[in-house]
């Protein structure tokens, strides 16, 4: 503080240029010191993330450009792009991610819509049905599906009792099991952001459309659907990106027949002493993840800017 006169009784405010400049400098110094203190508060958390995440990922990145001979090369990347085994892993990963995302949108959109239309009290209650699985360990839910989908599990028994099937369906240890289990895990991740964004759509838009003679279906397609797009795209992209890195569910429900990128990385790391191909796969997975997230961010920004 740079009060020029602190004699008892009155405090004279700074008047001369020199005094004002002195005060400004003192305040600036104070502010800077405070900001450094505040920055320090974030450092312990930052240190953990840098040492355990940023540094090792950087190291994986550099490792992926080192060939078997120890020199700089792109052979790890050319291997994963040309060898059939690796290519089929990418194909499987994308197939699973696309299927899961499509089912999540088909199931999640109507649920979010109904929840957004219902009175709050009801919506809160029904949201519990979305939150309970969300809070439940992925391992517990994968185990539950293992039980439900097996040859003589409830799903097959029920279908059989209803006379819908003659032989038990193969629902687990294959692609179907992986997709069912993953849809169940990812669905809350789509419903929650979508519900929140639908909740914020102003009901007056739909009323105005009805007033102007639009049928409910027409109003939905031309007013509600476009307005819900940013939430839908953000949720969809998040589901898709999270699917790309799945490890536990495909390992347990795929029965070794569904190989996704993460499983391959795990195998390479634990089976082979050289991390070359694994690190290249890791980098590709990271770039895909970051790329799709950036893409979704751009699309959502453009959509919201247009509205």
């Amino acid at each position, binding site marked *: 503080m740079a009060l020029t006169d602190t004699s008892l009784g009155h405090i004279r405010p700074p008047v001369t240029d020199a005094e004002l400049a002195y005060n400004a400098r003192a305040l600036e110094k104070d502010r800077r010191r405070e900001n450094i203190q505040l920055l320090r508060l*974030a450092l312990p958390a930052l240190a953990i993330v840098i040492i*355990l995440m940023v540094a090792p990922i950087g190291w994986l990145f550099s490792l992926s450009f080192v060939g078997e001979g120890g020199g700089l090369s792109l052979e790890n990347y050319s291997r994963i792009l040309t060898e059939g085994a690796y290519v089929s892993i990418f194909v499987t990963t994308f197939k699973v991610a696309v299927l899961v995302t499509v089912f999540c949108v088909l199931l999640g959109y109507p649920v979010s819509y109904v929840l957004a239309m219902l009175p709050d009290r009801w919506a809160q209650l029904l949201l519990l049905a979305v939150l309970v699985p969300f809070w439940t360990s992925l391992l517990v839910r994968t185990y539950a599906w293992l*039980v439900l989908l097996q040859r003589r599990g409830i799903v097959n028994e029920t279908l059989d009792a209803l006379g819908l099937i003659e032989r038990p369906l193969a629902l687990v240890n294959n692609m179907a099991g992986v997709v069912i289990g993953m849809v169940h895990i990812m669905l809350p991740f789509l419903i929650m952001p979508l519900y929140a964004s639908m909740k914020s759509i102003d009901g007056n838009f739909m009323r105005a459309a009805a007033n102007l003679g639009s049928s409910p279906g027409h109003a939905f397609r031309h007013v509600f659907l476009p307005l819900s797009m940013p939430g839908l795209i953000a949720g969809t992209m998040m589901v898709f990106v999270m699917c790309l890195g799945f490890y536990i569910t495909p390992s347990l429900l795929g029965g070794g027949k569904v190989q996704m990128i993460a499983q391959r*990385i795990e195998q390479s790391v634990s089976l082979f002493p050289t991390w070359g191909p694994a690190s290249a796969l890791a980098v590709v997975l*990271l770039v895909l993840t970051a790329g799709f997230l950036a893409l979704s961010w751009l699309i959502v920004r453009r959509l919201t800017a247009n509205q």
Partner: protein
Amino acid sequence: MESHVPHKQRLWLYVLTALILIFLVLPTLIVIPMSFSSANSLAFPPPGWSMRWYESFFGQEKWLLSTWVSLRVAFGTMILATTLGTAAAYGLHVGSFALRGTISSVLIAPLAIPSILLAIGMFFVYASAGLLNSMLGLVIAHTLVAIPFVLITMTAGFKTYDLSQEMVARSLGASRLKAFFTITLPQLKFSVISAALLAFIVSFDEVVISVFISAGPNSTLTKVMFSTLRDDVDPTIAAVSTLMLIIATVPPLVLQLLANRKREP
């Protein structure tokens, strides 16, 4: 928002929604009746009821030991992640330094990065630092995963809070630290509890990283469960699942109900 279509005409939509919600809830809850089955198989509905799978759980060292490890790690993570995350959230919210945006993006990044990548990275760092299969290593690893959750929760809390209250306390002679602990923190009690609970559950449920960096007597419950599930489907896992379900869902549900009650007095 109300709709202009009579309820009768959109009955199909309500039925569809009900079916999807059942699809979400039932498979989650099915482990509870399964855990009381008397059968050795996974038949459902169970042919009879018994407590044998709970006896099996409480009779095997591998389950008891790993549950204890998981609870301790989750508790440690809760303390560490809540402290570091809240400190970071406060600094980033109040401060106005240039790197603010970058730092918060880095701190939230663990949420977006596939856990398999975090896991192999940590495996490598821990292998050279001698932290593999240690409690400390698990706590720090889980803290990294929990920090984004704490940061997001606490930042949202700080945004609803009027920081000039702290200024008032400081102008009356309190130090910044004292102002924070006696004025700010008590008013953000709810955010802190939510953040701590999230951190606990994130750690307790974490699988992929634990599979890589924990082993032997320091294996977490999720690691033991995952390796057991890989070999065979032991019905004891139904009992374990029921216990995990209770530990992970009851606290947040209570919190949710409390939050609802607070909003509509």
